[in-house]
Structures are given as C-alpha cells and as structure tokens.
C-alpha cells in the first residue's frame, strides 16, 4: 500500500503536509514523532475517518482498519465482546459464531470471553478484542495508533508480541504509531519520523536507529528513557 502526497488541513492549519509513505505487504512500518506532529491525523486519514487530499493506492475502504489508543473508549460499554468482534464480519449467523471464536483465538483470548462486557476485561484484554474486531474485516492494512501507551508495562509486551505474531502468521501489513522509540524499534521493519506534519526521515529500523540523518530524529533518540541512566 502506498500513501501518496497525503495532506490534511483543518481550516488554515495543515496537520499533515504532503506525506508519501509506502507500507510494503507483510511489513510493519513505524511512525514516530511527538504528539501534535500529526501521527493520529495521518492514521485517521488513512483509515477514512477524516477528509484528505492525495491518494491511497492499493487498499480499498474497509481494507484499512484502525486500532485506537484507549481500549476503554474504543469498545461500546453496552455491547458484548462477541457482538463487537462480529461487527466487521459479513457472514451468516452460525458462521459468524465460529468466526468470532477464530478471531478471539487469533489474539489469544478464550472463546467464552465473547459473552462478557468490556468492563469485565482488563486493559490488555480489551486491546486484544479491539485488534480481533479489526481483523474481522480482513484488512490489507492495520493502523495501530499508540495501542500500548494506555497499557501497563506488564501487558504491553504481550500486545507487542501479538502484533509481531499476526504479521508472521497472517502476513499482515501494519502502520504502527507510537511515541516510544524503543517499542517502535522492537516491532517495526521501517521507521518514518514525522515532525510538524512532514516526514523528516524514513529508513529501515537499523538505519534510523543506528545512523539517524535528521537532527530531529537524533533528538528523539536522545529522549528515550533508559533504566538507571541519570
């Protein structure tokens, strides 16, 4: 999938400015940058949630699905988990049950969770449900917008592992947005750095982390917290 010259304007303000980025099939492309740099706006544009100019080539509507940052706000509190997961599934009633089970097992959740309400689930479990729901539409591209930043460290790792497994098993393409470079380095093949709505650097993870070219990328790398380094 190729994002070509994508621009999003809110009135006179340009939130995303002429971004061109390729997400090759089966790869995870990381998008980093501080908040307000336009990451979420880009994600929403690619997902068809905000109007944009430019082109998205190689992925139709419904073929792009997004997973949101806050797993507490992205599931309808009054809808059972099974019904939420089934929302993107276009199958007969009976087949849908089976499909929901399959989707839940893809994200390593037991099938009996289908009958529960989101409030009975932990944050990590909710985020898995949100991922299962997105997978139900069999997307060409999964947009993951800060999907671990609302989670505790103890479950963050499991969700990151899941993203990598899904890529390995399903050949899923992912646009993975995060402010945390250590996380992005761990899951992504390619890293794109966004600053004030513009891409300042794109390269393989090794290139960007190992020999950053843009000054802003170096500043971001500097800002990564390290245990016991004061």
């Amino acid at each position, binding site marked *: 999938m190729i994002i070509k010259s994508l621009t999003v304007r809110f009135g006179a303000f340009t939130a995303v400015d002429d971004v061109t980025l390729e997400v090759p099939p089966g790869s995870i492309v990381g998008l980093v940058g*501080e*908040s*307000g740099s336009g990451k979420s706006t880009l994600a929403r544009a690619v*997902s*068809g*949630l905000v109007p944009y100019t430019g082109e998205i080539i190689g992925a139709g*509507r*419904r073929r*792009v*699905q*997004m997973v*949101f940052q*806050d797993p507490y*706000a*992205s599931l*309808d*509190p*009054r*809808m059972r988990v099974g*019904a*939420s997961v089934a*929302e*993107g599934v276009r199958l007969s009633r009976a087949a849908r049950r089976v499909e929901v089970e399959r989707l839940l097992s893809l994200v390593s959740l037991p099938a009996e969770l289908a009958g529960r309400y989101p409030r009975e689930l*932990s*944050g990590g479990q909710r985020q898995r449900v*949100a991922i299962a*729901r*997105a997978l*139900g*539409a069999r997307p060409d591209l999964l947009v993951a917008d800060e999907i671990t930043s609302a989670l*505790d*460290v*103890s*479950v*963050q*790792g*499991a969700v*990151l*592992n899941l993203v*990598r497994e899904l890529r390995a098993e399903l050949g899923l393409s992912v646009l993975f947005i995060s*402010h*945390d*470079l*250590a*996380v992005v*380095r*761990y899951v992504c093949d390619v890293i794109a750095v966004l600053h004030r709505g513009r891409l300042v650097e794109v390269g393989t*993870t090794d290139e960007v*982390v190992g020999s950053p070219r843009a000054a802003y990328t170096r*500043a*971001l*790398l500097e*800002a*990564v*917290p*390290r*245990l*016991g*380094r*004061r």
Partner: protein
Amino acid sequence: MRHLLRTPAGLAGASLVALMVVLAVAGPPIWGAAAERIDPAALLQGSSAAHSLGTDSLGRDLLARVLVAGRLSLALAALATLIGAAAGIVLGALPSVLPRRAARLVTGTVNALVAFPGLLLAMFTAVVVGLGARGAVLGVGAAIAPGFARLTQTLAASVARADYVAAARMLGVPRRRVLTAHVLPNVAEPLILHLTQALGGALLGLAGMSFLGLGVQPPSFDWGRLLFDGFARIYATPAVAVGPAVAVALAGVGFNLLGDALARAASRTGPPARGPAAPVASENRSPGEPDARAVLEVRDLTVTFPGGVTPVRGLSLTVAPGEIVGLVGESGSGKSLTAAAIGGLVPYPGTVRAARLRLCGADLGELTAERRRRLLGTSLAMVFQDPMASLNPALRIGGQLAEVAVVHQGASRAEAAARAVDRLGHVHVPEPDRRARQHPHELSGGMRQRAVIAMGLMGTPRLIIADEPTTALDVTVQRQILHLLRRATEETGAATLFISHDIAVVGELCHRVVVMYAGRVVEDLPVEGLATAAAHPYTRALIASLPDMDTDTSQPLASIPGRQPPPGEVGSGCAFAPRCPLAGEQCAEAPPLLPYGTDHHVACWKAT
C-alpha cells in the same frame, strides 16, 4: 438498586414514589364513594373530627377527594411526560439524520425553546389547544420537550464522537445499525433517568395549570383543581388548601429525589464526599523509633473501603530530603491511594490507618485537623496526572497561584501576583506575565502541568508528590517536565515521591525505586540496581517485558501471564503467587519485606 436505597435521599424518593403508585391504584376504589358523597348538612366546613381536611361547597369530604385525585393527577403527569419525551427525543435525534442546513434549523429552534420559560410555553399551548385536561397535558408536554431534545442532542453527539462508533464506521457498519446498536443504548440510560425527574416536574406543572383554571375542569378533579377550589377559602379555612398542596409537593419531591438518586447511582459518583478520611493510628504495632532525617515516614499504611476492599495493605515508605523516590506498579496497585492517604485526600468512605505517618517531623495522626491542614498546605505540593484536577477552569492562572501565597504565606495581593509570574517563568512558561492572565483552557497540557508545578513552588515545599504527572503528555514534553521536577527537588531540597506505572521513566528520574503490587511494597532498591540487581520475581518480570534500545528483536518479549488480583480478592498468601514462576508451598503465607543487601528490601520467600 441496593446502592440507591442506601442514601437517605434515594430511600425517601423511592418510598414517596411507591406511596404515590399505591395511592393511584388503590385510591379510587377505596375512597371513590366517599369523595362523591354530597352532604348538604356539611357545606364548606373547615377541619373537624368527621372531615379532617374539611368539606367543599357540596359538602364532599376533602381528604377523600385528595386521596382519589392522586390517580388522575399522576396519570396526566405520566401522559404529559411521555408526550414531551417522545417529541423531545425525535426533535433531538433529527439533526443527526437530517441534511446539514435542516439540522441547523432544528438545533436552533431547540436552543430557542430551551431558553423560553416552560410555564409560558405550557400556557400558550394550552390556550391554543383549548381549556381542559387535554390542553394542559399537551401544554406541559410541550414545556418538557425542549429539555429532552437538548439532552438527546448532546448525548447523541458525544456518542457519535466515540472511538467505538469510528471503529464501526470503518468496519462498514450501516448508519442505521450504528444508531440502533451503539447510539441508542448508550443514550437510553440517561434519558430514562431524566424521565423520572421530568415526571416530578410534569406533576407540578399540571397542578399549576389546573390551579390557574387552565387544566382539569369539573366534574373531574385533580390536585391542582382541588387547590384551585380551596384557594378562595384559604383565609377562612386553611385546611382545605393544605391537603392538595401537600400531596403535590410530596409527589413532586419524591420523583425528583428518586431521579437524582438514580442518576447518581448510574454515574457511580456515590453520595457527596463527607470530607477526606483522617489517618487513624493502628493499634498494637510498634513502629520503632522515628527516622529523624526523613521528610516523610510511612509505617504500615492501610487504606480500607467498606466491603473488605483494602487497596493499600501495610505499606511502609521513607523519603529523605533531596531524594526522589519512584513508586511504580501497575494500575490498581494502590499507588494513587497511597499518595492520597499522605495528602489527606482519601475519599469518604475510605479509612486510613497507619502505625506512623510523619511529615516534617510531625505525626499527622496526632495533629488537630486545623494544624494538619496547615502543615499539608505549607509543606506538601501535589501534582496530578490531570493538571485540571489542580486548576480551577474559571479562574486565571496567575490568580490561582497567587491565592496559594496569600492563604498559606500571608503575602499581600501584589507580592503574591508578582511571585506567581516569577514562578511561572521559573518553570519555563514562556511570556509568564501574559500566561498569568490567561485561563487554564488557553494553555496546552504541558503548559498546564508546568503551571501546577509552579503552584507547588509558590511556597517552599518539603515534600513533592507527583502522581503520574507526565502520563498524559508526549515524550518530548514529558522529558521537560521530568527535568523540571528534578531541578525543583535539587533547588528546594524537598523530598519527592514520584508515582508512575512507567518503570522506564522512574528508572531515569529517581534515586530509589519502590515497587508496589496489589497494595504492598514488594521491593525497594536503589535505581542503579533496577536493571540488574532486582530480586523480586515481579520486578524482574516487569523489567524483562520492557523493550529498550538494546532488546534482542529476534526474541519475543517476556510477558507476565495472568493479572493482578483486585483489592477485594487478595488472599492471605503472596499476591503474586498465581503469576509467579517460582511459587511454592511457602508462598501460601505472605512474605514480609526484609532487608536484602544494602539499601535494598524484598518481600519474597525465594529471594535469599
């Protein structure tokens, strides 16, 4: 439901409403005949043994008539409410389905109607439709509708912006299904609550209409009509007006109380806080000699809520001057409640117990409420995740900061204002004098958090407690705020308790790390040891699951299976046992926090 009946207001409301329902059902069959019995010998009497509320101009017993009128009064009120709600909900839902321009027209109309006095709207409608019960019901319905329309509109708009609706749209869920599956269910509950309150209003409104002669006409009678008939005689025989007036008031109050209580139960805000819980010394534990050097010394802190919920269980903690102690743990481990207990902010009905809770050498449990408040006000600065928890949205930043100096340091207004600007500049708020004149909403999240820190620095705090101060901020801003906190600690020599779920941030900022799990401290160690010397299986697992810039990307990240038990379900053993790879028989008993090398404490049987 039990929750609802626990508050006095909820109980009173529910009883009154139940009483009204019984009256509506049983009133006419029991007292119907008495209410219609004409007695020429007892015309226009006042209160007497035979007729406790007197009689009317045909000698009919007024008490019986009041009891019988309940059914009609309540039925009409229910009808008016249903009409108003139906009209209002349709009107409120229209803008989300109509084309843009028509939607704006509807919204504008609703806004105008909301601003229009309800009784006038009701009277106007009643006059147009015609006198009588029908006119009154439609009139009151018309008066109720705009409120419902506005509520429906706001609710629908907020649900429409929810992430789960965006997700449904991406999945190609049809518009109609989004409405029935997501919007309506999430809008229904508040609407039903509003219905109960509207019923009380309708009852009063209809009584008012009948009282004005616009409502129920003879020979029918409702409470308003009885009031209308009795009012002319109020000076001669006041009892005749008291009956219907009391009935209307009781019913109206009942529905309003019930509606309020329902709304509160639904939003789970509980009864209004009765002020924070003061610490109570816990018996039979000798905490040993107090640590004279420590700014903060906590021994065996326990926070309990009714129903056996103990989110903080026997926590001990010491913070020295100039030291930054990081308190880490996953959400729900009791970090925030620990901070709240120290600051005297645990909400009712929580109870705080501690063998010792010393701040700046004074035992908080032994101080009078007044002295405790003053000590906390002058020596403790608190910074929360949401800066708006500390800022009043209605006041200018500068004024709020100045207030602190005026109240706690007895500074003059002018001095305080100047100091506020100075402190804002000190925490690198650009153009501090201009910012001081702005309201909180005009500042970005990072700027607001700086303002809160500046507020803490108006005095000379001895202890700074920062509870997830950077969680809502992005990395670069997060970093600046952390710098600022460290500098504030260095400059003031204050002790800092830094609370975070993010062990990486804590590892970078703090001198010492205290790890909490399920309400207890499981490990306490110098930050240098965090990456390599952690001894508790939970701490180790946390660190292993955290990717850093050197993590081997060919291996899956370590993760901790299972979940932390909620505070009501922590058993007597080690709370980590169900998730612990080392758990053994011994772990059925809770391990104490014991010294482990220098400056290092661990609560684990297997850490030897």
